[in-house]
C-alpha cells in the first residue's frame, strides 16, 4: 500500500468515508464499537518530552497555528468514539451506578498505611511526596496537601480522577490515605537526586524537608493521595500531536483524536489547566498475548481551585495562557487598568477547595497554561460530543463525587459541588445548541422514528416548534438516494411517510432539521442512516452537516 493510500485509510477509516471494493459506504461491522489494536507494540521504547521544550513549543509555535478544521478521525460512523487503548465509553452510552462512579478506577484494595517504607523521592508532579511501599509491600506514589490549604490537593486529585475515569480516560487508581511520621521509614536503597546531579542515600532530614512542605493534620499525621503503580512498562508521556512512530496501532494523529480534542471541554469544566504531555503516560501492557500501548491521563491533580504545591491556583489560571501577546499589550498600554475577568470575579474560598468559581467561567474562553494542538483542533461536533458527557453527570452524581474528596467541612464540599454543577450547565448551554443536537435515533420495524434533542434534554436550549424529516432510500453500493417523502412533528417522534423497504440489507437515510425558532445550526440536517436486518432497523450512520 502506498503512503498516500495509507494516509487516506487512516483519515477515513473510522469516519465512515472508506468504501469497500464494491463501493459501499457502510461496512458490515459499522458502527465500530472498538478500535482494534491488532499489532504487537513490544518494540515501543520509552520516550520523554522536556518541560522547557513543550512549554516553549506550545506557547510560541502551537499558539500561532490555525486549526485545520478537520473532522475527528477516530470517530465511528455514528459520530461516536469507539473504545480503544485511549478511551472507554462509560458515562453516556450506559448508566453508571453511583457505586461505580464513586469507586472510579479503583479496582484494588486501598493502601495499608500502618507502615510506609520510602523507596525514593517523588519523581512526577510538583506536589511534595514520596514513592513508598505500604505495609502490604505494594508501591504507591504519595502526594500531600499544601500547608494552609489542607485537603485541597488530595480532594482535587481524587475527585478529578473519578470524573476523568467516568468520562472515559484511563486513570491511575488513587486513594486518600495518611502518613504517620512515626510509621514512616527510609528504605535501605532509598536515594535522592541532589542538586549536583548525583544520587545519594536519603536522610532523615530529606524526609523532614519534604514533610515541612506538607499540610499536617491536627493529630500530627499527613493526609496524602496514594496513586497505585501502573501495570506494565512505562513508556513516558504521549504527545497531543502526531503519533508514536514505534506503536503500530497508533495510526490516528493525536490532534485528530476526538477524546484528546475534547479535553478542551472537560478541562474547562474541571479547570484542568496544566494540560500538557508531561501529565500523561503511556505504558506497555500485555493483552491477549501481545503488547499494547495504553494511554493514561496520569496527573489530573491540578484541577478545580487547587494548583499544588502552591495551594490555590493563580488568579489567571484558566483565563490566559502563560504568555499571550494581546492581554500583555493591553495591560502595558493601560497600566493595568484594562481589567481581565479574573481580576474582578468573586471567589468564595475554602482552604480545601481553593479558587474555584463559576460566575466568570466562560467555556469558550477557558484556557490551559499552554495550548496543545489537540486543544486547537477541537471542532463544534467534538465539543458537542464532550458536552453531552459533561451534561450526563446529574446533580446527585456530582455531589456524590464531591463527597469522595473527603472534605471535613460540609460547606466546602457543597460549594465545590455547586461550582461543578454551575460550570456543567454553562458548558451544556454553550456547546450543545451549537450544532444540530439530534442524538439517539431509533427506527422501529414499523417505521416509528424516535430521537432525542441533547440540548433540550439538558435544558440548555428551548425546544424548537417542530422537526422536519426527509426520508430516502439509500443505496449503500452507490451512495445514491431516492426520496420516500417528508414528515413533520412537534415532538421527538414521527412515522415514516410510506412503506419502508423490509428486506434485510436495505437502507434508509433520514435528514432531520429543526423548525421555527430553532438556532441556525439546527437548520443544518443531521443525516441518519439505518440498515434493515431481520430484527429491524439499526442505526449505522450519523452525520452532522457542518
Amino acid at each position: 500500500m502506498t503512503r498516500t493510500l495509507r494516509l487516506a485509510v487512516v483519515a477515513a477509516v473510522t469516519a465512515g468515508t472508506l468504501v469497500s471494493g464494491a463501493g459501499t459506504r457502510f461496512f458490515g461491522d459499522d458502527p465500530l464499537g472498538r478500535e482494534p489494536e491488532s499489532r504487537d507494540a513490544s518494540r515501543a521504547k520509552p520516550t520523554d518530552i522536556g518541560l522547557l521544550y513543550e512549554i516553549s513549543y506550545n506557547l510560541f509555535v502551537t499558539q500561532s497555528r490555525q486549526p485545520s478544521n478537520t473532522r475527528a478521525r477516530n470517530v465511528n460512523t455514528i459520530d461516536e468514539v469507539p473504545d480503544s487503548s485511549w478511551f472507554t465509553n462509560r458515562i453516556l452510552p450506559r448508566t453508571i451506578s453511583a457505586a461505580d462512579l464513586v469507586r472510579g478506577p479503583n479496582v484494588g484494595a486501598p493502601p495499608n498505611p500502618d507502615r510506609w517504607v520510602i523507596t525514593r523521592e517523588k519523581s512526577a508532579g510538583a506536589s511534595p511526596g514520596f514513592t513508598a511501599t505500604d505495609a502490604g509491600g505494594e508501591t504507591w506514589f504519595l502526594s500531600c496537601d499544601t500547608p494552609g490549604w489542607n485537603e485541597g490537593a488530595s480532594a482535587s486529585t481524587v475527585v478529578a480522577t473519578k470524573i476523568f475515569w467516568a468520562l472515559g480516560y484511563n486513570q491511575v487508581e488513587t486513594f486518600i490515605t495518611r502518613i504517620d511520621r512515626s510509621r514512616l521509614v527510609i528504605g535501605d536503597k532509598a536515594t535522592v537526586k541532589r542538586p549536583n546531579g548525583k544520587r545519594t542515600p536519603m536522610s532523615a532530614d530529606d524526609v523532614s524537608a519534604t514533610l515541612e512542605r506538607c499540610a499536617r493534620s491536627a493529630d500530627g499525621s499527613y493526609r496524602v493521595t496514594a496513586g497505585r503503580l501502573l501495570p506494565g512498562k512505562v513508556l513516558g508521556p504521549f504527545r497531543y500531536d502526531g503519533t508514536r512512530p514505534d506503536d503500530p496501532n497508533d495510526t490516528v494523529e493525536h490532534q485528530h483524536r476526538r477524546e484528546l480534542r475534547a479535553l478542551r471541554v472537560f478541562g474547562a469544566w474541571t479547570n484542568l489547566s496544566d494540560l500538557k504531555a508531561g501529565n500523561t503516560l503511556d505504558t506497555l501492557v500485555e493483552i491477549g498475548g501481545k503488547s499494547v500501548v495504553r494511554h493514561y491521563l496520569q496527573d489530573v491533580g491540578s484541577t478545580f481551585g487547587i494548583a499544588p504545591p502552591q495551594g490555590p491556583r493563580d488568579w489567571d489560571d484558566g483565563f490566559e495562557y502563560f504568555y499571550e501577546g494581546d492581554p500583555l499589550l493591553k495591560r502595558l498600554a493601560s497600566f493595568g487598568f484594562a481589567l481581565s475577568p479574573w481580576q474582578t470575579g468573586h471567589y468564595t474560598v475554602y482552604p480545601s477547595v481553593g479558587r474555584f468559581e463559576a460566575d466568570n467561567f466562560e467555556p469558550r474562553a477557558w484556557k490551559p497554561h499552554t495550548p496543545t494542538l489537540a486543544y486547537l483542533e477541537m471542532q463544534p461536533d467534538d465539543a458537542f460530543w464532550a458536552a453531552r458527557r459533561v451534561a450526563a453527570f446529574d446533580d446527585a452524581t456530582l455531589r456524590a463525587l464531591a463527597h469522595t474528596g473527603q472534605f471535613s467541612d460540609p460547606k466546602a464540599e457543597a460549594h465545590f459541588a455547586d461550582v461543578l454543577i454551575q460550570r456543567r450547565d454553562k458548558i451544556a448551554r454553550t456547546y450543545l445548541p451549537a450544532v444540530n443536537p439530534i442524538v439517539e435515533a431509533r427506527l422501529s420495524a414499523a417505521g416509528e422514528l424516535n430521537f432525542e434533542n441533547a440540548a433540550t434534554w439538558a435544558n440548555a436550549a428551548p425546544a424548537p416548534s417542530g422537526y422536519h424529516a426527509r426520508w430516502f432510500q439509500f443505496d449503500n453500493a452507490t451512495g445514491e438516494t431516492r426520496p420516500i417523502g417528508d414528515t413533520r412533528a412537534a415532538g421527538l417522534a414521527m412515522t415514516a411517510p410510506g412503506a419502508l423497504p423490509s428486506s434485510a440489507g436495505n437502507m434508509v437515510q433520514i435528514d432531520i432539521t429543526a423548525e421555527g425558532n430553532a438556532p441556525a445550526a439546527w437548520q443544518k440536517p443531521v443525516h441518519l442512516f439505518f440498515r434493515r436486518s431481520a430484527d429491524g432497523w439499526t442505526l449505522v450512520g450519523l452525520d452532522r452537516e457542518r
Partner: protein
Amino acid sequence: MLAAAVALASTAAAQDETPVPDGRAAAIEQAQAQKAAHLHEFEPNKVEKFLDQVEQTLLSGGIHFHPFFDSALAGGGFTLGAGYGRHVSSYNIIDIRGSFTFKGYKRIETAFLAPRLFERRGSLLLVGGWREATQVGFYGLGNENTSKNDRANYSFKQPYASGTLDLWPTRKLLLLRGILDVAKWDVGAGKGDEPSVDQVYTPQTLPGLGATPTYVHSQGTLALDSRPGPGYARRGGYYGISFSDYHDQDGLYGFRRTDYEATQHVPLLRDAWVLSFHGEAQLANAANNQTIPYFMLPSLGGGSSLRGFSSWRFRDRNSLLLQAEWRVLANRFLDMAVLYDAGRVASRRSDLTTAPLKSDYGLGFRFHGPLTTPLRIEFVKSNEGLALVFSSKAAF
C-alpha cells in the same frame, strides 16, 4: 471532503493493487499492518534536542559556566563577566567569576556557598577576591551644596575576603545575619574625563583623602522577612536592622553604622497591581577620635537607590532613601512599574527628615521569574537629567 477521501483511497488502491478491506476493523488493521513495517523510535528534532539538553543541564547540576554581571562597584557602566561554578558536594558550590567594564572596572573572586546548613536553617557564603574601580564619582558632601558638575573621580584597588552566615531559626520569617569581612582600600587618583579628587581637594578639605585603610568589618542583622524571595516578590515584606563596625587596623578611620531597612509589597486586584514601598536609613558614626573617609560614607544615587541620579551622587554621614513603585503585572514574566524615589544625605541625622529630599520618577520594565529578576530596565527622570538603568537584580 468525504468524496475526495473516497476517491483518493480508491485511486491509490487501484494503482498498487492493494486489496481494499472488507470491513471497518479490517481497514484499521490493514493500516496498522502497514505501519508495523515502518516502525522507528521517536527522534526529537534539533530544537527539542537543544532545549532538552538545556533543561537537563539546569536540572542535573551540570551547568558550570554562567554570566556574571556584578561589576567591581556600581557606576562602572555596562558589565561583561562570566563565572564557572561547580558543586563540591551535594549542595555546596564553588564559583570562580570575574567581570570587567569598558571603564576598566575589574573584579575577580572565588565564592563558596553552603546553602543548606543546620538542617536547612542556615547558609554560609565565603568570598575572596580582588577588584578595581578606576573612576568612582565624588561630588562633594551633602545634598544642597553639590552639583553634578562637581564630579571628581577616585580609584581604588582592593583585595577582600568576607563571610556571610544567614540563620533562619524558625525556617521562615526571622532572619539573623552575621558578616565578617576584611578589605584593604588602596585608594588613588581617579581616571576619566573628570578631574581626580586629589586635584580638587586636599586632605584638609576632604576627610580621608590619601587614606588606604584596611577594615575589618563585622555586621549583625536582625530582620523579619516574609517575602517569597528577595529577588522577586509581589507580597510580603522585609523589616531589618543592621549594626556594622568598620575597624581600621591603624585606628584612624574606624566607624560604626546602623542601617534600618523596610520593604513592603501590597498586592491589589489579584496581584495585577502591586504597591511596593521601600525605605532605608544609614546612620554612620566615627569611632572615637577617628574619621570616616569620604569613600566610606553612606551614599545615594545609581540604579538601586536614587535612580535618576548618577551613582554615588550624594554622600554624607547619614542617608535616607524612600522608594515607591506601582507595579503592573503584564504577564507572568513581565512587570511594568511606575517608580518614585526620594532621599537625601545629611551630616546631621535631624536634617534627614526636616530638609527637602531629592527625588526622581520613572518607568521600568522587569523580566522576572517566580523568585528572580534577571533583567530590569528603567527610564528615570530627575532634575539632573534622564537616567537609563540596566540591572540584573530587583529594585527592592
